[in-house]
């Protein structure tokens, strides 16, 4: 593992720190603006959505919305740039899409799951990618459901356990491979270490594997291209990077793994402007910035002549410890390179700037 040396390393500069009076579970930038959303749970057991705007060295509260149930996750991935509706999943299993200008009544609402929605992702919106906008939710009830905001009440795809099988919590979901109107895949990670890749075009399970530790976060490096890389983070401080371009019939996808920290790696997020750089956030309150380097040959033939992928290598660009509590959510700004927000369980949200990313 090589490291970029000395003064040329990217620096993580803490720009603004904001203390909150609720537990923040997710934070996201509002696309095309200097505003960010924080979602979470207030002490009295209600959900909170707060909208902030970045003013110089401060965050100014623009709006505060309270909802009856605590909110666990949210995404802007499936809305258009003008509308910028926020889709949220809450502790009760409800999926709601809100118009932030008129947040009293949701634009779309469905009680999608019997238990808390742990993770949500959207694709097809924001002018990125092609195809219908869709939202996927993963829940503790073991199911992963894909929703189309134009279709009420029933999901367009439902990945549920076989009859009689005991369920495992689904902890994380991600869309990928949405490079044309028909193709789309959903990757889901579960608490027993299972990773499953569902192909929505053929409505089948395309690949599955088990990484021996509960899966905390999965993300493709880009949702709207032919699937290239998938980063999976887990408990016990490990994460894996799978090369998704070549699938071997028995061995699946090639991967490289790294044990970064002693604690759980809660979140991974790729830099929108450079798909080979990503940041992982850990249970010890630290952030690690990584770069993936491709191998000389991305695929090779094995003894039987079938193609198998070759995984590359990882280098740690920078790491910094910001908090004593886990940093549970992380989001890069799609508009300004290096600007990111992270929310931690010490009830603070921090806006950070990562410098020198141009030189990588």
């Amino acid at each position: 593992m090589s490291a970029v040396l000395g003064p040329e390393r990217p620096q993580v500069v803490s720009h603004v720190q904001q203390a909150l009076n609720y537990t923040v579970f997710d934070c996201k930038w509002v696309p095309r603006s200097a505003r960010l959303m924080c979602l979470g749970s207030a002490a009295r057991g209600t959900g909170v959505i707060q909208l902030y705007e970045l003013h110089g060295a401060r965050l100014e509260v623009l709006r505060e919305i309270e909802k009856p149930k605590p909110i666990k996750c949210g995404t802007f991935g499936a809305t258009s740039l003008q509308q910028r509706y926020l889709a949220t999943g809450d502790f009760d299993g409800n999926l709601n899409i809100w118009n932030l200008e008129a947040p009293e009544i949701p634009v779309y609402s469905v009680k999608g799951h019997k238990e808390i929605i742990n993770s949500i992702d959207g694709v097809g919106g924001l002018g990125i990618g092609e195809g219908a906008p869709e939202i996927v939710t993963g829940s503790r009830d073991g199911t992963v459901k894909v929703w189309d905001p134009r279709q009420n009440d029933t999901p367009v795809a439902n990945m549920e356990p076989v009859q009689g099988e005991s369920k495992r919590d689904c902890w994380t979901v991600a869309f990928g491979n949405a490079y044309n109107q028909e193709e789309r895949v959903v990757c889901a990670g579960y608490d027993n270490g299972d990773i499953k890749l569902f192909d929505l075009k053929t409505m089948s399970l395309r690949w599955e594997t088990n990484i021996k530790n509960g899966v905390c976060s999965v993300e493709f490096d880009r949702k709207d291209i032919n699937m290239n890389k998938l980063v999976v983070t887990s408990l016990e401080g490990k994460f894996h990077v799978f090369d998704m371009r070549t699938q071997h019939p028995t061995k699946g996808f090639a991967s490289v793994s790294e044990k970064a920290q002693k604690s759980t790696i809660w979140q991974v997020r790729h830099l929108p402007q450079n798909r080979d750089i990503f940041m992982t956030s850990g249970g010890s309150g630290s952030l690690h910035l990584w770069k993936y380097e491709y191998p000389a040959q991305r695929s090779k033939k094995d003894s039987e002549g079938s193609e198998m992928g070759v995984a590359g290598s990882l280098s740690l660009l920078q790491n910094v410890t910001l908090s004593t509590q886990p940093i549970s959510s992380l989001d890069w700004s799609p508009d300004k390179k290096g600007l990111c927000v992270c929310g931690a369980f010490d009830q603070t949200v921090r806006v950070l700037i990562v410098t020198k990313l141009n030189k990588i």
Partner: protein
Amino acid sequence: MPVWLQEHSWRQSLTAVYLSLPLRGARATAANIFCSEQYLKVSIPPFLFEAVLYAPIDDTNSTAKIGNGNIFFTLYKKEPAMWDSLTLANADKEKLQHLRENAVLKAQEKAKEETEAKKITKQENKKYALEATMKLEEAERKRIEDLKEKERQKVTKELELWKNQQKDGDKYKSIQTKEELHQEIEPLKERKKEKMNKTRIPNEASSKTRLKSTRGCHGSCSIFSQDLKEEQLPAPRAAATIKVNFTPRVFPTALRESRVAEEEEWLHKQAEARRIINSDLSELKDLKEEEKNPDWLKEKGNKMFAMGDYLGAVNAYNLAVRLNNKLPLLYLNRAACHLKLRNLHKAIEDSSKALELLTPPVPDNENARVKAHVRRGTAFCQLELYTEGLQDYEAALKIDPKNKIIEKDAEKIRQLIQGTMQSS
């Protein structure tokens, strides 16, 4: 008795005295020479030479050269004057002794002073070195801080600039949408083209921090472009279900590599426990098939307990234990029966046996362990052994801190203990 060295020769100038002392074969080192202001002694056993000098000399600057079987002293006089003789004449024994002692004392003091002076200079040097390094480090740190500060300010400025552009962009967008709301479709398509040209220019003029996208016109054009886009969107997917199988896992908790060994051990023990059958009981022949199954017997026992037939339940559990004495739940349930029957010692025994079998402690057997602790605690309290009972309740609380009932009972016991201590 020392041998006095008498042969010496000397000469003098106004400021110095030169004394030459031949050594008869003896070897001299600096340690053998003792010199103070008015007293000079050379002692090389068995030879001895001493002289009480005529006038005081500057002993720090005076030198002695040892060589050629000779010691050559160069003594600098304190007061430049010619001496009548090298030594003081008419010096009686007492005076001599006095002088000697003085000389020795003075020499010692001098030595002490010198060491002190050395120490002080050493300390000062150290301090100086320390301060110098601290300054260097401080400077280094400051430099890094400055760099960071500069970066931050630069980035903040860029951010502000970018934000203002966003605001302008937004304003522009909102003005446009307002205009377009009042128009019809046909002329609008032409307008749209026009606007695309217009908006292209400000877009390109703005700084490169904006995301370039060919779909950028979507952002700045009207709602009508969105309608068009919607027509291009495919219909919602046909609903379907994919059935999923999970990698089997017995425990409801998440999988962690570091805990796998412990969990395996527990499962192994459970599996073994089920397989053991004590087959050398002759009464087995009389039992029906079902009665040979410890699980069936346990179920029977549970049912009888629920109906209040505690003795029957105990019998069922006894038989089950004879068949398989490694199932912790049998002991746990039998302990509950004994509690109801007020066989307190037996209840304690059974709960203890259950706890022994419930190792290693994993989340899976949490419930069972809490129950065992609570039952044993209750039995202790009923025997008025309150401290032991409290210990068990606290162990139960440790496993399950959220259980209010256990908390309340533990509190009650504490108060009982305090009450009895006060009265005794």
